[in-house]
Every structure is written in C-alpha cells, then in structure tokens.
C-alpha cells in the first residue's frame, strides 16, 4: 500500500481543497496518471498518481480542504511490484508487460475487426512490417525479448517452421458483427491506415497565414531570367578572401537583396501596403528573408537594407538566420518588414510562386543559379543564369510596374559594377 498525500505546492501554501477525484476506488491507475485535482488560491492542479496499482480507499472526499501531507487515499501497488524487476531489465524506458499471473486489465480492443491479434508488448516497426508482409498471427509467435516481447529473431524463427502457414487474409471470425464484405481488403495487422496528430501551434499559424494571404491579395507571379555571371565571377574571385576576412561564406543572396533594395527605392509602390482605402508608403526599406526551420519557417527582417553594402547584408543574413534556427530572435527582428525575399534556389528549385507575406504587397523568389548555354551575338556562351520570380498583389500593382521593378533588379545584377564589396 502506498499513501497518497496532499502535495506541497509552494512555500506559502499550507492547505488545498480536493476538488475532484478522477478515479474511483477499485480503478487501476498508472504511475503519473492524473488521479485527483486540487484547488489552491486561483490555481487548479491535476495531481498524478505516485505509483501504479489499484486505487484502494479514498480518505478525503471532494470539496474538503486539508493540510499538506495529509493522506488522501491509498493505492495497493501489487501490480507495480511484480512489474518492477522486468522493467529494470527491459532496454526501453517503458515498463514491460505484466506477467500473465497478474490479472491485468483487458487487452486493448483492436480498432477494426481483424483476424490478427496484437500482442500485449510493444512491437518494433520492423517486426510489424515483417508480420504484415508475411500475414503472421502474433498469437502464434513466441516472444523471447524483454517481457515476452516479439523480436525480429522470433519472427524469423517462426517463419522457418514448416507449420508456419499464413492465415487467410479474409478469415474474419464470424462472431465479429458487421464484418466487411470479402472484397474489402482487411486492415493490416496492428497497423492503422491513418495516424492522427494535432497540428502544432506553428503549423496552425502558418496554415492560417497562408490562407489569409491568398484570400487577401490578388496574387500574380512574373518571372525574369537573369544572367548573373558578373556577380558569379566577383563571388568566385572574393570567396576565399571574404571567408578569411569575415568568417562567413559569400552567397548570392546579399547581391539579390542589394539589387532589390535599389529597385524598391526606384519603385516605392512595391514597398507599400494597403490599409482599408489607403496606400501606406513605407519610408524605410526593411527586407524580410524567409528562413526555413525544421518544421516551419520564419521571416526575420533586415532593417534599412538599402543602407547596407553586400558585406553588411551578408552579415545580417547569417546572423538572423542562425538565430532564427536557434529560436533566439527578438520581437522587433521579425516585425516591420516592407518586402520579402525567398531563396528557394538554395533547395534546388528553379522557379516557384511565393506567397506574399501580409501586409506586404510583393515577394521576390530567387531560383537556383545554373551554368547555361546562352546565345550572345549569334555565338553560344556559357553563362551563370537564374530565374527571379516576383509575386505581387494585383490590387495595388499592375503587371507593367511589376515587370519594370523586376527588370530593375535584373539590370543591377547583370551590370554589377562594384569592384569593392
């Protein structure tokens, strides 16, 4: 028997009200499973069971206020004691299945009628796959792993037996109500056809933002081909020097950002937003750079990007993307963008149609730079070429302006003349 007590919730808390029992006497509880709820001043707390076992007596009824460390219930923990030695040996952190002699709770019901039963112990994905492919009934396989668990070797040994006849895949027991018609393939053993997982908060936010943007802006994308050879040569020349001097590599992105900043200065409507019936022109050129994260993305902002040279832009890009990935961005570093750039070329994409980052009105996508045969003055030359995709909001920007803007970005990149970075 283990005593369950009113826990200590803090220095100033001397008592708590037991507000709700989540289990009844006689119920089986697992260690750390919520057992009861208590209420202290303005705080409700779920209290987990200290051990696995069966809830015996309840000593404090709902609605009663008692001091801390008062015994509120007792749990008989026979099951936990029996399972404990096995758990020590088991390589996994999960406790092993209780020995057969302990009257355990009923085995979990299969979600779908199936002739193939799931054993109590956990199975590795490999074992599941082998069983599925060979139509094996787990009940016939002797498990030799920890806690009677079925291992790969057990399945192999079973398959090696001459009597290991696979069960007919549609041999559903007649007792199963509403058995599916014979032509419907049965779900594979122990393997659900779907897996349900809630959207993470980040995913939900991205989903909302994407749909909101598509619903808000009249998206149009224009694509321009850019001969970026001059930049490529410059980058080639200064790469090693740049790395040793600044401790970071030099990419195409700061050149494109620089060119975009120039073009935004020339065409301020691309650096604007719509607010109800008004156009808001932003006097600062704050360029967001989309950074891919493991399960999402974020757009940190380079403030006053038009005032920075290529070195400064590269430094900002490296700094912001590093801190985005380590989740160390400050609030003002992801707000206030007036235009965005998405560098999907980094992942090998040649052309894409990016979604506008609201409330902005345009986003520039940069495709992968590739060496391409190009006709110049009726001769074939090998040049470094990439595609720039500009998605713009046709509510505010017409195609002619969008193309003038993109042509300006192209002209800056193609005519790159700064000899000093």
């Amino acid at each position, binding site marked *: 028997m283990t005593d369950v007590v009113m826990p200590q919730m803090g*220095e100033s808390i001397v008592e708590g*009200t037991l507000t709700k029992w989540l289990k009844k006497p006689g119920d089986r509880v697992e260690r750390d499973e919520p057992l009861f709820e208590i209420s202290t001043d*303005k705080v409700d707390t779920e209290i987990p069971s200290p051990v696995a076992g069966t809830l015996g007596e309840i000593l404090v009824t709902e609605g009663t206020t008692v001091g801390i460390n008062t015994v509120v219930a007792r749990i008989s923990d026979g099951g936990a004691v029996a399972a404990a030695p096995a758990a020590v040996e088991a390589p996994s952190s999960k406790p092993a299945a209780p020995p057969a002699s302990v009257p355990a709770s009923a085995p979990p019901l299969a979600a779908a009628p199936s002739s193939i039963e799931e054993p109590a112990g956990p199975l590795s994905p490999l074992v599941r796959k082998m069983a599925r492919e060979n139509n094996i009934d787990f009940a016939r396989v002797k498990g030799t792993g920890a806690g009677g668990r079925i291992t790969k070797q057990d399945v192999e040994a079973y398959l090696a037996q001459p009597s290991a006849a696979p069960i007919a895949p549609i041999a559903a027991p007649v007792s199963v109500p509403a058995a599916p018609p014979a032509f419907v393939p049965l779900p594979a053993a122990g393997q659900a056809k779907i897996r349900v997982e809630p959207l993470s908060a980040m995913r939900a*936010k991205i989903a909302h933002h994407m749909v909101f943007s598509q619903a808000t802006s009249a998206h149009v994308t224009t694509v321009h081909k850019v001969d970026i050879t001059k930049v490529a040569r410059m980058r080639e020349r200064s790469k090693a020097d740049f790395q040793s001097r600044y401790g970071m590599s030099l990419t195409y992105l700061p050149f494109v950002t620089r060119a975009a900043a120039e073009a935004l200065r020339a065409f301020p409507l691309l650096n604007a937003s719509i607010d109800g019936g008004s156009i808001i022109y932003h006097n600062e050129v704050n360029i967001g750079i989309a950074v891919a994260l493991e399960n999402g993305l974020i757009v940190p902002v380079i403030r006053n990007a038009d005032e920075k040279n290529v070195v400064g832009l590269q430094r900002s890009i490296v700094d912001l993307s590093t801190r985005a990935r380590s989740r160390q*961005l400050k609030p003002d570093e992801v707000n206030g963008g007036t235009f965005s750039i998405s560098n999907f070329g980094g992942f090998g994409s040649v052309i894409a149609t990016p979604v506008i980052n609201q409330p902005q009105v345009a986003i520039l996508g940069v495709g992968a730079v590739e060496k391409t045969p190009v006709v110049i003055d009726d001769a074939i030359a090998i040049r470094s070429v990439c595609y720039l995709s500009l998605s713009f909001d046709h509510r505010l920007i017409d195609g002619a302006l969008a193309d003038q803007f993109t042509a300006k970005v192209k002209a800056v990149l193609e005519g790159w003349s700064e000899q000093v970075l």
Partner: protein
Amino acid sequence: MTRPACEVHDLGRTGYGEAFAMQRDLVERRKAGLIPDQLLLLEHPHTITLGRNGHIENLLASEEALRSAGIAFHETDRGGDITYHGPGQIVGYPIMDLKQWKRDVGAFVRGMEEVMISALSEFDIAAARVPGCTGVWVEGRKIGAIGVHLSRWVSSHGFALNVNPGMSYFEYIVPCGLQKPVTSMEQLGSKAETAAVRAALTLHFGKVFGCEMVQAVLETVI
C-alpha cells in the same frame, strides 16, 4: 549565466476555444521538454468563462441572454470563479514549467500580480495587492484577474488586465464571485493603447520571472 528563454506570441484577437487548444498543445510540448516557456498575449472576443470550481449562480444572465448579446460562454479548467474576457482586455497565458522556476504556485500567482502592477505603474497607475483577494486592485476596484491550471507543474491559463474593455459586459456576472467593483485603465483616465500595455507586460514578465523574452517563431511566417 544566460537567462532561460520565454517565447512570446502576440496572437491578437483569438477565440477562447482556439486559444485553449493552442495552450493544450503547448503544454504537452512543454512537458516533453520540446519547447521553452511560452507567453501567449491575446484578446478574446466577448466571452464569459467559469472556472471548474466556480459557481454558476455568479452568472447573472441566462445562456440564452448571453447568446443574444453575442457573448460566448465556456466552462473551463482554470482556478478561480467566473470572469469576463473581451476586446480591450489583454489576456496573458504563460505556459511555464514551474519545476524550473520556484516550484511554488503561490509565488507564481504573486509573480503574475507583480507583472501587472509593474506594467500599470508605467502608465502612472498605482495598483496593489489586497491580502486574501488574489488579483490586482486600484482603490478597491479590481483591474487584473488571475486563474491558473497546473498539470505536472506546467501552467496554463493566467491573467487578464482591463485596458479599455466595454465595462458594461461585467454586469452579466459577479466577477470572480466577489461583490467588488471592477475597473479599467481607461476608467482611471489612461489613454494607453493595448499594444503599449502588451509591451510593458512582456518587459515586466521577463523581469519578474527572470527570463529572456523572445519572439515566438510562429509570428511572421510566409
């Protein structure tokens, strides 16, 4: 030593159910150690919520009447009695692992009071605690409310500060089950905008709970 991070989410107007689902998701991931502490800042549409151990008799209107007034009603699992949330009231939901702070629910509640009191002082409002009446008070009127849920020492729900809500909505309830009046920054003569108050709350939250407030990565995404 660097201070632990607390990610701030400025969610804007968010439905009660949606915010509840988001909290539940974050609580699970906080318990699993996948994310640092979180602070959700938002405003709810007109909503009345009743704590698990609250008294329904403190709701002064029928659910029917609430519906026709455009007010949602939710029973929820936080501590505290009945309360009103709505536009103009900043709600803060910290998802914090208190095992890594002080392991003390009393100190946590006092900490949230401190955050609101310090933020209010930036707008020249002298708010204080009233012994035995959790929350934040100005001259006997309640301006900030608290209600928390804990599971394995990870918090959800939190605090609500009245900046400039429609005060008539409080007439549908006996706020927190107390026969005491409520007030707002606006009623006290402040013209503060909610954005400025949010910024003050964020700053003081970091000071009181000793954490580095960083923007959550879900904010600006494309």
